[in-house]
């Protein structure tokens, strides 16, 4: 046994040293500049709480990459696109991101949807000089020391929450009960709603529930005891379905308002028409009617687009345009040039092809996307965005009269 122990010990150490010596000999990591294909990637939610949106993001990315490649690629090089499923789970996301960064050598990670995933993956991005173009909304993410490797096309929590507070004020509510699952933006939401509503004399109650439960009866009972006249159902789609059904059973009669990303058409199907009836939703409007929006509809062959597929489309376009402007297929090139293409002093463009032609001709451009004008502030938050109030009536989501 002693002999075996010594040999095994030597083998373990030898193997370990071998692994460590390798990078000195082989250079890995920074593959995507110089020559060879340009690499960008999508880290999307194909399963889990955000699983309804990932496939569309991937679709949009692929469509943009395909049309740019058909026209000759970027910087004379083909674009390689990779997609990984983050399972709407930070742990799975970190491992998937590692593969995209270390193995695939991507310059950009696009369309991360859940805030917990964004929080987890962003440090990996800035450490490795990879650009993150995201959808996730938590304020805390933009405040991380990301050195510019982060932009998002989704209005951050503060912007969104103001809308919910306004709803409570405009509807003349006396007691507004805010119920949310635990997310990186939950505490921020509670704080902002209180700050805006309490001075107007609206009583605010808050409750955090466990989004993984299949029944929220106890939580709803607690809320019903307080008898509020308005309720914010601040969850994602799966828990909204559970919530709405239990709410219906409990016979709640007040006004209910939810995030549009939770109260989707699939939500109506899952919860049933009666449970969904009358629920208000608030959503950032894609630049409905904008040329980019119309173009995207044709590109992916859909006549109804939600804000996420629009944002994914914009991410792909912006990443490619920034690479062209910066002359290198790296995350740093994207970081240094994204605002020059998204908000440049030039002609408006609504897609990568036109933008690439303009850049090649030495002109400035100003990308206006399907999700909005895409103007980013220094820490990566979107600056302008419009919101709309909808209501579910007879199984359909229609714009609400205020």
């Amino acid at each position, binding site marked *: 046994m002693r002999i075996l122990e010594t040999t095994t010990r030597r083998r373990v150490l030898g193997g370990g040293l071998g*692994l460590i010596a390798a*990078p000195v000999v082989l250079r890995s*990591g920074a593959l995507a500049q110089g020559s060879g294909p340009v690499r960008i990637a999508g880290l999307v939610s194909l399963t889990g709480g955000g699983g309804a949106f990932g496939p569309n993001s991937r679709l949009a990315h692929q469509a943009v990459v395909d049309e740019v490649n058909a026209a000759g690629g970027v910087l004379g090089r083909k674009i390689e696109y990779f997609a990984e499923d983050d399972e709407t*789970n930070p742990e799975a996301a970190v491992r998937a991101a590692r*593969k995209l960064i270390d193995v695939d050598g991507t310059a950009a990670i696009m369309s991360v949807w859940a805030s917990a995933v964004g*929080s987890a993956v962003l440090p990996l991005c800035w450490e490795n000089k990879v650009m993150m173009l995201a959808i996730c909304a938590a304020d805390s993410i933009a405040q991380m020391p990301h050195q510019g490797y982060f932009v998002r096309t989704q209005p951050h929590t503060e912007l969104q929450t103001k809308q919910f507070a306004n709803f409570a004020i405009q509807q003349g509510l006396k007691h507004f009960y805010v119920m949310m*699952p*635990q997310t990186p933006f939950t505490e921020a939401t509670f704080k902002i709603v209180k700050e805006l509503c309490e001075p107007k004399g609206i009583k605010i109650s808050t409750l955090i529930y466990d989004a993984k439960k299949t029944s929220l009866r106890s939580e709803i009972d607690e809320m019903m005891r307080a008898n509020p006249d308005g309720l914010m159902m601040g969850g994602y789609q799966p828990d909204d379905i559970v919530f709405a059904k239990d709410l219906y059973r409990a016979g709640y009669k007040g006004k209910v308002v939810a995030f549009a990303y939770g109260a989707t058409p699939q939500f109506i199907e899952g919860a049933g028409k009666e449970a969904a009836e009358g629920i208000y939703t608030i959503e950032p409007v894609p630049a409905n009617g904008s040329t980019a929006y119309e173009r995207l509809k044709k590109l992916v062959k859909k006549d109804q687009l939600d804000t996420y597929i629009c944002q994914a489309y914009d991410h792909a376009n912006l990443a490619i345009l920034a690479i062209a402007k910066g002359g290198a297929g790296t995350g740093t090139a994207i970081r240094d040039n994204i605002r020059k293409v998204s908000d440049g002093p030039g002609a408006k463009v609504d897609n990568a092809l036109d933008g690439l032609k303009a850049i090649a001709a030495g002109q400035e451009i100003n990308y206006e996307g399907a999700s909005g004008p895409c103007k980013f502030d220094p820490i990566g938050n979107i600056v302008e965005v419009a919101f709309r109030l909808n209501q579910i009536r007879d199984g359909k989501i229609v714009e609400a009269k205020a």
Partner: protein
Amino acid sequence: MTAYLLAMATFAAIYALLALALNLMWGIAGMVNLGLVGFYAIGAYASALLTTRLGLPVALGLAAAAAGTSAVAALTTLGVTRLREDYLAIVTLGFAEVVRIIAENEIWLTRGTDGISGIPQPLKAALGTGFNAGYLLFCLGILAAVLFVVERLRASPFGRVLRAIREDQQIAAFAGKNVLAFKVKAFAIGAAIAGLAGALYGHYTSYISPEIFVPLVTIYTFLALAAGGVGNNWGAVLGAVIVVFFVESTRFLIGSVPWLLPVQLAALREFLVGLGLLLILIMRPRGIFPEPLPRLLRGGAAGRPS
């Protein structure tokens, strides 16, 4: 690709520590611990919080993780070590669940499902791109040290008493050994190792959240131990390496099996882990490496039943 391999090797080293911890508690001392991931979590959170909230240096965080987890284990096992095996299994499973629930809900402390990000990675700035290799070396160093310690323990009188307790508690008590004290000590040391592994994980990935600390981690560790050899420390390390590389290699199958959805591949991966554990239990419950016999009994003397 090399950075990816370095990362997998680092995870393997961390799982090896978990396997060593379980080996001490269960393989040698005979106390099943289905809640191993709970200690892993406590260590990870302890070090993460001390280094992010209080700004303590990483080394102190690691030491505190080991010590703190150990203390929690000592307290909680006082009540349960007397339990028969299957009750102990149930209770320890519950323990891990409670740890996760607390981590999810005590947002003021753990930031709940938001997780703790920006956990300091030692010497990250100084090493730059060499960090992956450097950290792996660091983990291997700790693994070697822990392996040395548990091997010594196993061969020592302390280890002999633990094995005696594992075989027959009543006789050990009859022989004058304070069974409770020995069990608590074994559990506490094992927990310290598991807590240390958790802390190392946090300082590597710079992010932890409750969703990471699921029973699957414990099951992977059981598989590692069953595969490598229950009671054998080297086997534990080998088993951990096998399990991590097996699980991660299936990720690359996604490209070559296009007709399966990602969720199906994930399910298939976990299914194979379960199947692997079951087959090992049926066919080779002692693992690849048998438990090393005590010196006295090598060389053909009438051996203890193994």
